[in-house]
């Protein structure tokens, strides 16, 4: 009966005390500042997807590994700041030249492509032909059935010799600086009548080109017989025609020229002489498709042709087809070329709020997702180390004698070991998973707290109320839990707050040294990438992660100080 009556009042008392504590905490400026910062970081950690469309490594979620922009690009907003303020008006942005590369259409059919025809026998149609092979990277978002059909046909008895058709798009390049890379794509399928050898009666020569209007066009496809020797092939790395300055930094690892799935055996310098038999079996592996997926990287150490200039202007990206009709006039002849996924992406030298790293991954997304690991690790390490410290401090303080001596000497030894070198050695040997880091940091971080708890317990042990509890017959465990622990509660709160900053910076330091979980992004890892990429002037890459680490650490330090002031009345009076 008494117990039932007592319980609500005790609960109310506890709640009232807690409310009073919260009131004091919120009246304190330091804790308010600290809590606000922590709350912001918590939101970022819990719902990062609200703030960025990309994944934790800063990649497009649907196209992992495909760069979002050029390597080591600047933030977009730097474009709009005048140069004398440190801005860079010559930056360019990403540009998707084609609105709908998945279904190329002529302007005549409400599309975006122009065409010129030189010769006879050519008809251009829309086609419903659906190409079931995998969409090329970078064009997934434009996936759509449908293609453009260019057909050359004639009756028997005449020869047209040569008919030429160019399908192109003219576009404005509005930026004052060159793009960092370009990424073009075209997929071709050829059908037609064949002779006894199985070769097309009217073979077709296909050339994909890019260049300024009125200037020199650069051939992008077919690939040169020797990609290194043929200097006519531009490599995506662009150079400014006016200033002669090289384009933005592109790391050599992007230098490889990728000619995916292009089949050289039957394509002789662009002449397509054989034919596919059935559209439905076409895939990117089969010989019947010319999948000139071109990712023009930069070959290191050689001069590169120039495509873009720093003067805004009109450019052309197009495909030229020359049908050769010289073989056989005694039968009707036709050759059809289906064009699909005809597009061009110009990667700018600026991207997003914070630019990109050297792999073209969004730094802002990395920063947002990095919050998660820091907060999670910081809190887990704090809980773990405070738990261990509490257990050891209580045991040593209350048991006394040999136990105390042994535990305290052990504590001294651990305190004396140099922390970071030991951590480095252990992580190097055990592996740098997040769980390992939490356990190691927790196991190496409890000593100071254990000492504080022990000295507190030593003084409480001698108080009259403990003696009274003993006299009543309370057991050791009961005394520790209900008399000693409440009196070290303030210490626990303060230490929980104070243990986080050390853990956060230690994690950052280890990640920076290269001990990071490859599947998780952390602030330290961002700085590691910065150091590796040697991008010494990209301050937008190095400043935010460090500022975040410092802000999070400082927030917990402020909270700890505030708790100290609120929970220790002596300090409260002094202020």
């Amino acid at each position: 009966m008494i117990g039932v009556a007592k319980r609500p009042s005790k609960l109310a008392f506890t709640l009232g005390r807690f409310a009073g504590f919260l009131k004091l905490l919120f009246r304190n400026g330091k804790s308010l500042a600290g809590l606000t910062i922590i709350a912001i970081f918590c939101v970022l950690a819990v719902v990062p997807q609200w703030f960025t469309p990309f994944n934790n490594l800063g990649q497009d979620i649907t196209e992992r590994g495909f760069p979002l922009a050029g390597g080591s690009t600047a933030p977009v907003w730097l474009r709009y700041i005048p140069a004398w303020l440190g801005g860079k008006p010559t930056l360019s942005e990403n540009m998707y030249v084609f609105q709908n590369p998945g279904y190329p259409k002529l302007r005549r059919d409400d599309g975006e492509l122009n065409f010129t025809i030189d010769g006879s026998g050519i008809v251009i149609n829309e086609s419903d032909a659906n190409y079931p092979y995998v969409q090329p990277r970078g064009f997934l978002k434009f996936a759509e059935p449908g293609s453009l059909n260019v057909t050359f046909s004639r009756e028997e008895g005449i020869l047209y010799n040569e008919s030429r058709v160019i399908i192109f798009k003219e576009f404005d390049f509005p930026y004052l600086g060159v793009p960092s890379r370009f990424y073009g794509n075209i997929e071709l399928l050829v059908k037609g009548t064949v002779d006894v050898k199985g070769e097309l009666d009217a073979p077709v020569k296909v050339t994909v080109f890019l260049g300024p209007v009125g200037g020199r066009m650069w051939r992008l496809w077919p690939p040169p017989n020797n990609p290194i020797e043929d200097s006519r092939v531009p490599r995506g790395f662009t150079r400014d025609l006016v200033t002669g300055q090289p384009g933005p930094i592109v790391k050599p690892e992007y230098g490889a020229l990728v000619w995916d799935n292009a089949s050289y055996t039957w394509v002789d310098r662009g002449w397509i002489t054989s034919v596919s038999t059935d559209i439905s079996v076409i895939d990117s592996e089969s010989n019947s498709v010319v999948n000139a997926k071109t990712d023009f990287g930069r070959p290191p150490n050689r001069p590169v042709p120039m495509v873009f200039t720093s003067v805004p202007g009109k450019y052309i990206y197009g495909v030229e087809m020359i049908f050769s009709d010289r073989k056989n006039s005694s039968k009707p002849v036709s050759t059809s070329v289906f064009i699909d996924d005809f597009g061009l992406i110009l990667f700018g030298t600026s991207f997003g709020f914070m630019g990109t790293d050297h792999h073209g991954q969004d730094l802002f997304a990395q920063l947002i997702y990095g919050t998660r690991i820091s907060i999670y690790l910081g809190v887990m390490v704090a809980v773990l180390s405070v738990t261990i410290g509490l257990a050891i401090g209580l045991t040593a303080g209350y048991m006394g004698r040999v136990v105390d001596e042994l535990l305290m000497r052990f504590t001294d030894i651990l305190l004396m070991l140099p922390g970071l070198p030991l951590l480095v050695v252990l992580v190097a040997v055990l592996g740098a998973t997040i769980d390992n880091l939490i356990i190691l940091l927790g196991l190496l971080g409890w000593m100071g707290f254990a000492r504080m708890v022990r000295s507190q317990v030593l003084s409480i042990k001698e108080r009259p109320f403990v003696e009274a509890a003993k006299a009543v017959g309370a057991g050791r465990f009961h005394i520790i839990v209900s008399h000693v622990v409440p009196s070290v509660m303030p210490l626990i709160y303060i230490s929980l707050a104070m243990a986080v900053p050390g853990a956060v910076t230690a994690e950052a330091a280890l990640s920076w040294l290269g001990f990071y979980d490859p599947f998780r992004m952390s602030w330290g890892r961002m700085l590691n990438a910065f150091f590796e990429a040697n991008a010494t002037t990209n301050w937008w890459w190095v400043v935010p992660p460090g500022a975040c680490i410092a802000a999070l650490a400082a927030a917990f330090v402020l909270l700890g100080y505030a708790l100290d002031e609120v929970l220790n009345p002596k300090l409260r009076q002094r202020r």
Partner: protein
Amino acid sequence: MHVGLRSYILKRLVYSFVLVILIIMLNFAIFKMMPGDPIQFLTRPFQGKISPEEIQAQQDLLRQIWGFGDPFHIQLVKYLRNLLTWNFGISIVGKTPIAELMARRIPYTLLLLGSATALSIVFGVLLGVAVIQRRGTIWDSGAVTSSLVLGSLPTFWLGLVFLVVFFGFLQWFPNAGAFPRIWALGWPQALSSTSKSSPNTLSIAFSFDIGQAWTLVGGYLHHLFLPLLTLTIFSFGSWLLLTRATMLDTIAEDYIVTARAKGLTERSVLYRHALKNASLPLITSAALSFGFILSGAIITETVFTYPGLGGWIWESIQTLDYQVLMAVFYVISICVVVANIVADILYGIIDPRIKYG
């Protein structure tokens, strides 16, 4: 009294010896913790780089040095003997005895960390006293807050920012090394000697070129500046806070009131009376922090590619040279233990009130 001190020191020495043994045990445990066979683990970085015969030779050497394959107790004794005699084996990468490589790197770490520690103590203590003089003002709270913030900044980040500003943009300071790279071709000869021997005399001429000497000093300082700045900024704050805290306690004492009543200037009260009495914890923690000299610079030395012990740790991680890692860790730990003894003894000598217990 003297007997007390002597037995106190003896006690600390015995305790420290036990500590050293424990540290060696810990090292041994880490060795044992390596996944799989330690021999395989240690020679893994060579797979595909050197011929199988050479790998076999390396493995035999490791087996001979560390006694893998022997019974446990013999292994442990061999291990103890090796570490106590500074026989750490041969660096896999440098193909040189580790102790020799270490001797080449220690001076740089001592130079960098020694000067950084000294500078941050001087700045921290002076600023701490200056802050005490203005306690309660905006200077006071500003100094405390900024020391807290600077102390919680990650050192490597501070270093990277300095690199961006002073190397990337301004190009005032170099980003790597301890001396100009061009010196590898020919060192500035500050002190040179020529000797001539004739049948019955030997004449030796020394010459000292002050210009060359300045080049030498300037080259080192130029490369030292950024890491030194980073370390000093990072660590002077804790000295400021410590000085402020101890001084706050001291200036509440009666003898300070007396000194003021005598009419001494505030300056002499603070520096001659208060600071002297507050210096006890400062001196002991200075001794301790000099002990941590060898350990403190992994991050900073890596950022600035400084050829000290810390940078070596990082390089060894990159090349998986675990023997080097453990040797460096061992040496660092020993240093800390020695510093602890020194601090304890200093404490005992300086403060006569201490009970030697």
